[in-house]
């Protein structure tokens, strides 16, 4: 199985906004998610000298898993620098710099560390625009990685999109492909608001066709990754990858799933989701996070409020159980849902009583390409 590519030609015009026609050539240009992030940082920083990037390890030998490569050499140590282990204070620093006219980018090797900075993010960054009567803005981008696998455990693998998305004033972005990662990160940096940009570590080595140069994927626009007529699967981040695997297997049972990737959690492309649900009449939501009060609950509520009459079956959600991540591999492997769980939910809404036809199960079991590579460190 090959990883789906959002070819430029395949991306509907309203989903991508090339900066200039000349930036885009027809040759396929495969780049890993990690490289796409890196290219976005290079593009955004080259365009605007008000940008700078700081974070623990941004210029260390591991370069945030390769994503900050070449930045210090190109933009110098004043615009690319390591920081003390002071997440909350440092977030206040970028807010202050933003209020004083800069466009800072901050990086966290784990999203769990952003919780230290929740005061500055939630109480200050998110409020400044509104509380200033719209006279001020805080154009900051906070990159945060979700760890997964190799015993990352309770404190190094949380998926906190819903926590941030709950707070008015923040934007929350969660790309699933390298193409989107680049275009969305550029949009985030150029946006005038605080953006929490969530990168799933297990997507980092997955390649996609990534155009050279500057292009934007707008915030608030989702994408139909694969069209289908029977069931809508709304999935985010790594779960888009798993959903596409499930879709291929479901085809063995004649089930045609449509995969919708919102790409930004907030603002949300409500219409894209509702359009799809109205078409298929069935909805499965797949999140990388917990169930209770999560993104999946939000989408379910949206469908129930806005297109209840179109639903032919109860909505199903595929999420983490409401449990902290266990460290031991024995429990880690049953903690994370995958393609089979998504297929099961889809079969359920198709009226198969939650039973996965053997052909579907066999197809998933036989998929030769492993899921996104397992994560081995550095911590």
């Amino acid at each position: 199985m090959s990883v789906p590519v959002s070819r430029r030609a395949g991306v509907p015009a309203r989903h991508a906004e090339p900066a200039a026609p000349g930036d885009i050539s027809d040759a396929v240009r495969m780049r890993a998610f990690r490289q796409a992030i890196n290219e976005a940082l290079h593009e955004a920083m080259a365009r605007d000298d008000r940008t700078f990037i700081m974070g623990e390890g941004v210029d260390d030998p591991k370069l945030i898993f390769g994503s900050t490569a070449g930045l210090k050499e190109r933009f110098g140590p004043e615009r690319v620098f390591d920081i003390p282990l002071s997440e909350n204070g440092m977030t206040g620093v970028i807010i202050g710099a933003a209020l004083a006219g800069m466009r800072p980018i901050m990086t966290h090797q784990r999203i769990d560390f952003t919780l230290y900075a929740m005061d500055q993010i939630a109480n200050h960054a998110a409020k400044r625009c509104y509380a200033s009567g719209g006279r001020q803005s805080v154009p900051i981008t906070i990159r945060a990685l979700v760890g997964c696998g190799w015993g990352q455990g309770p404190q190094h693998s949380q998926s906190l999109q819903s926590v941030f998305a709950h707070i008015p004033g923040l934007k929350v972005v969660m790309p699933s492909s390298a193409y989107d990662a680049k275009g969305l990160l550029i949009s985030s940096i150029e946006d005038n608001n605080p953006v929490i940009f969530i990168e799933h570590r297990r997507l980092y080595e997955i390649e996609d066709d990534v155009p050279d140069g500057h292009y934007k994927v707008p915030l608030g626009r989702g994408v139909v990754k694969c069209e289908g007529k029977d069931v809508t699967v709304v999935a985010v981040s790594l779960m888009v990858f798993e959903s596409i695997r499930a879709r291929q297997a479901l085809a063995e049972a004649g089930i045609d799933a449509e995969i919708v990737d919102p790409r930004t959690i907030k603002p949300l492309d409500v219409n894209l989701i509702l359009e799809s649900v109205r078409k298929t009449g069935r909805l499965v939501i797949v999140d990388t996070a917990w169930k209770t009060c999560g993104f999946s609950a939000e989408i379910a509520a949206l469908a129930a409020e806005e297109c209840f009459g179109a639903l032919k079956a109860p909505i199903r959600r595929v999420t983490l159980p409401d449990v902290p991540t266990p460290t031991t591999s024995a429990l880690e492997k049953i903690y994370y849902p995958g393609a089979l769980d998504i297929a099961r939910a889809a079969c359920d809404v198709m009226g198969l009583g939650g039973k996965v036809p053997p052909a579907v199960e066999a197809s998933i079991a036989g998929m030769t390409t492993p899921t996104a590579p397992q994560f081995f460190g550095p911590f």
Partner: protein
Amino acid sequence: MDAVDAVTPDLKKNLYRTMLRIRRIEEKIAVLYPEQEMRCPTHLYIGQEAVAAGVCANLSKGDSVFGTYRAHGLYLSLGGDLNAMMAELYGKRTGCTRGKGGSMQLIAPDEGLLCTSALVGGTIPMAAGAGLAERLRRSDRVAVAVFGDGGTEEGVFHESLNFASLKKLPVVFVCENNFYAVYTHFSQRQCADNIYERAHAYAMPGVRVDGNDALEVYRAMREAVMRARRGAGPSLIECRTYRWLEHVGASSDVTRDPEELDEWIARCPVRTLQHRLVEEGLLSEEDIHRMKAEVDAEIVAAVRFAKESPFPAPEELEAGVYAP
């Protein structure tokens, strides 16, 4: 009894045994880690043994300790069960957190290790809290926070020092300054090399010791613990030391200056104490061999125990999110 008198021959030998044991256990983990059966991030303590040994030798039952993810040394110095530690690294049900927390969240509550954490600095205020509990109970127990140089950059370090000093809590703050946070040198993160002096701003004693000298650590800790027990309040001890391996995992850290590493290896805490004890006639070659053989046998048994232990059953995934 002053601190010097307290350093008895038995104490020295015990310190040596503790450090030797930590060293050999960590070395064994480093050898086994590449087998990829210990499937969790593991931060080894080789090079820093004198700190945990010297600190914990001053503690007794009822005292509490709060550490970091680099806690194998603390756990073992406090008398945590080796089998349960190894099983934890292997993700087994017999581990000290039943496989839930892994190497980064070891605990040994019965021996006083109440919390370690994968998040930098988070456990520092907890020690102040445990000190508060002892104060409220009017006990003579102490609480200890052990954290890295990086931990002192978190706001909670300062907040905890202030509060502990304000309330004169029985707390000892122990900083293991190994000069690095992952790959980043201290000098790129802090404006001055003066961690111990920050104690003075919070009106408490602050001392700097050679963290590779177990006796020096022991003496400083002894004074701080006595002060805490008699109700005179907290202290801060900065122990200067060095980790020999990479930040996490079992490889060597090729990014650091090899000469710097060599200098610290030349000042190996285990060998330093060994020389001293041999010179003082407290330890013979034979004793050393015997101790090594004992520890090695214990390690072999612990690894076997860990490997043969069962993994947690699937039902255990959802168990224990809330206390009953």
